[in-house]
């Protein structure tokens, strides 16, 4: 067994699936030349299971699962989606792979991969907490970092800063968030109570 290049990994992945059930995966390259694989949200669990169980691929380790908000990102075309990024590593073959899934901003729901890699449990809770993406099938989807009664998803680019929490003001007298509207201001739009 030897480490596979990105193209070989994709080729193997296409070969493993029967032609009728092949998910619509797309190969992409990021700005700094790193290749990655775009996977449709509904197929992520199927793809993840194959990546883990196939003896040639052998991605037993999910190194990280994170998310980022594409709003205000200079993408072409502009997007308002939230990208979920999966960093995989094969401890046997010493190769790695980056997957991405796009979740719509308002109704973003992605199937949970915590049944494939149990470590995804905490990662997905973090993304749920800070970016407000729901993971279908997650066993315990609740906030992990912010207090349970927190309002909004702080890492979203359009997050509205709260003026206070629990009766304690965030800002000292006369201070103001310069770029972001603060909840409680007349100009600030209403924000949903839950992420």
């Amino acid at each position, binding site marked *: 067994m030897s480490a596979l290049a990105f193209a070989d990994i994709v080729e193997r992945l296409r070969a493993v699936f029967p032609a009728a059930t092949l998910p619509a995966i797309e190969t992409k390259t990021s700005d700094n030349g790193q290749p990655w694989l775009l996977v449709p949200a509904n197929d992520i669990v199927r793809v993840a299971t194959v990546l883990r169980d196939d003896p040639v691929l052998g991605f037993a380790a999910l190194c990280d699962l994170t998310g980022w908000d594409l709003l205000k990102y200079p993408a072409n075309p502009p997007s308002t989606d939230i990208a979920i990024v999966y960093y995989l590593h094969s401890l046997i073959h010493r190769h790695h792979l980056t997957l991405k899934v796009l979740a719509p901003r308002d109704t973003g729901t992605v199937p949970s991969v915590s049944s494939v890699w149990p470590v995804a449990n905490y990662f997905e809770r973090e993304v749920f907490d800070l970016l407000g993406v729901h993971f279908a099938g997650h066993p315990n989807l609740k906030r992990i970092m912010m207090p349970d009664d927190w309002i909004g998803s*702080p890492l979203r680019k359009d997050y509205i800063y709260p003026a206070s929490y629990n009766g*304690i*003001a965030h800002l*000292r007298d006369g201070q103001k968030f310069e770029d972001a509207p603060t909840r409680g201001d007349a100009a600030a739009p209403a924000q949903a109570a839950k992420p």
Partner: protein
Amino acid sequence: MTDITKPGNGADEHVFTTSIDEFLAWGKENSLFYLLFATACCGIELMQTGGPRYDIDRLGMIPRATPRQSDLMIVAGTITHKMASRVRTLWEQMTEPRWVVSMGSCANSGGPFSKWSYSVLNGVDKYVPVDIYIPGCPPRPEALIDGVMALRERVKKYRTLGVRDRDPHIVQGSDCAFGAHPGKPPLPETTEPSA
């Protein structure tokens, strides 16, 4: 046998008189057991202060692993809104009289997080009364020891049997003021105007 109660036989050299209050304050001053509690990088300096080079044990300061045996809480590090209620609970578990030292910029005012962070408390004095503030990011062990020496001057003035018409949580001569914890009964008002 020499009668030491007679003048010239050592009474003036071996016996001194004092008030009970001063005696108790002397004992408190020289046995400030502090809570082993650190939330961020100031804790490294706190550990160093307790280590052999600076050896804060020589001031009678022994680390305690439980708040129930502690006289002093050194808040060393960033306090988030989620952590703040835990800090308050720890403080409430300490036996009276109790003192709080706010160590470093984060505990004093939120420090580098005071302006742009949604999750960091702007000073631990919003939740617990603070006796001594030590500036620095983080303060060196010398600064912490200097703060402890200033606190000892304050402890020396504490009167166990003294006037009881004011908040016993607050050291006499203290000018600290803090808000009531949400969801908990407000503390009795002090007779002195709050700062």
